[in-house]
C-alpha cells in the first residue's frame, strides 16, 4: 500500500471501525451522489487551472467520477451504517482518496457470477471484464476505461476491497492480505 498519509489513514480507519457513523467531517463525507459529484467537479476545475495538470484534468474527472459513482450505484440502500463516500483530495500532492462502507466488490459481483472465488478474482474481473452486479442492466464497462486511462497517464491506482489489493502502476497486480477491509478504499496518485 502507498505510504500512509492522513487522508489514507482516515479512510482505512473509517472503513475498519465497528460503527462508522459520525466519524467523518462534513467536508470529507459525501452522503449523497449529488454532494460527491459537486466535489468531483470542483476537483476538475481546480486541477484544470493548475498548469502542470491542464487538460488531463478531464481524465482525472473521468477516473474519479467512475470510482465514486460506483459507490452509489452498488450500495444504495445497502450501507453497513454510514451511507455514502469518504472523498478527499489534495491537488498539490496529487492524491485522491475515496472510500465506502458498502458491500465490497466480491459481494457485488457474486450477484452476477456466483463462481468468483475470492476478492482478487473479483477485483481482476471488475477491472478487466464487462460484468456488473447489476446484471441484466447493461453495465460494467467503467472500470475498464479507468484502468486504461491510469496506465496511459502513468498514474497509480490502489483499489482495496475485502482481502484484495488491486494495484495499477504500469502493470496491474492483485495481492491477498490477511486483514479484511469491509467496503473499499481507492487511492489515486496522479
Amino acid at each position, binding site marked *: 500500500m502507498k505510504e500512509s498519509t492522513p487522508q489514507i489513514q482516515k479512510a482505512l480507519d473509517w472503513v475498519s471501525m465497528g460503527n462508522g457513523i459520525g466519524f467523518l467531517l462534513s467536508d470529507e463525507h459525501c452522503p449523497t451522489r449529488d454532494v460527491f459529484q459537486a466535489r468531483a467537479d470542483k476537483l*476538475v476545475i481546480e486541477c484544470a487551472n493548475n498548469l502542470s495538470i491542464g487538460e488531463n484534468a478531464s*481524465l482525472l*474527472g*473521468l477516473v474519479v*467520477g467512475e470510482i465514486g*459513482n460506483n459507490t452509489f*450505484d452498488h450500495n444504495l440502500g445497502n450501507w453497513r451504517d454510514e451511507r455514502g463516500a469518504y472523498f478527499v483530495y489534495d491537488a498539490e500532492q496529487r492524491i485522491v482518496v475515496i472510500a465506502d462502507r458498502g458491500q465490497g466488490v466480491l459481494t457485488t459481483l457474486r450477484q452476477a457470477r456466483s463462481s468468483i472465488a475470492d476478492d482478487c478474482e473479483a477485483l481482476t474481473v471488475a477491472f478487466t471484464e464487462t460484468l456488473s452486479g447489476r446484471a441484466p442492466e447493461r*453495465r460494467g464497462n467503467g472500470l475498464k*476505461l479507468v484502468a*486504461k486511462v491510469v496506465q496511459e497517464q502513468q498514474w497509480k491506482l490502489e483499489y482495496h476491497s475485502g482481502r484484495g489489493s488491486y494495484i495499477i502502476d504500469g502493470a496491474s497486480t492483485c495481492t491477498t492480505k490477511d486483514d479484511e477491509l469491509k467496503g473499499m478504499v481507492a487511492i489515486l496518485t496522479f
Partner: protein
Amino acid sequence: MVMKIIMKNFGDFLSSRPAGKEAYLSAQAYVFPAKNEADVIELDFDGVKVLTPSWADEFVTPLAEQWGDKLHFSHTENLSVKATLEFLKQIPTS
C-alpha cells in the same frame, strides 16, 4: 438534414449513470428528432469538461443503436470525451 445536439446543454460535467439516463429520457421527449425529421444526428461536445463512460453508455449507446453510422460527433477534443467515445466504439452493442 443534420440535427445538431448541443451536449453542453445537459451539463459541463457528464458523469453518472442516473444523470445520463435522465438526460436521454428528457432528450427523447423534447430534443431528439424523429427518423423522418433528420438524415444525420450530430452530438456536439463543445464546452463539455468531463464525459464518463457511465454517462455516455446511458445516452450515446442507445442513440448509436438507433442511428448507426448516421450518428456523428463533433468537438471531441476534450481528452475524456475522446477516450470515452473511442472506448464505447470497442464495446459490442446488444
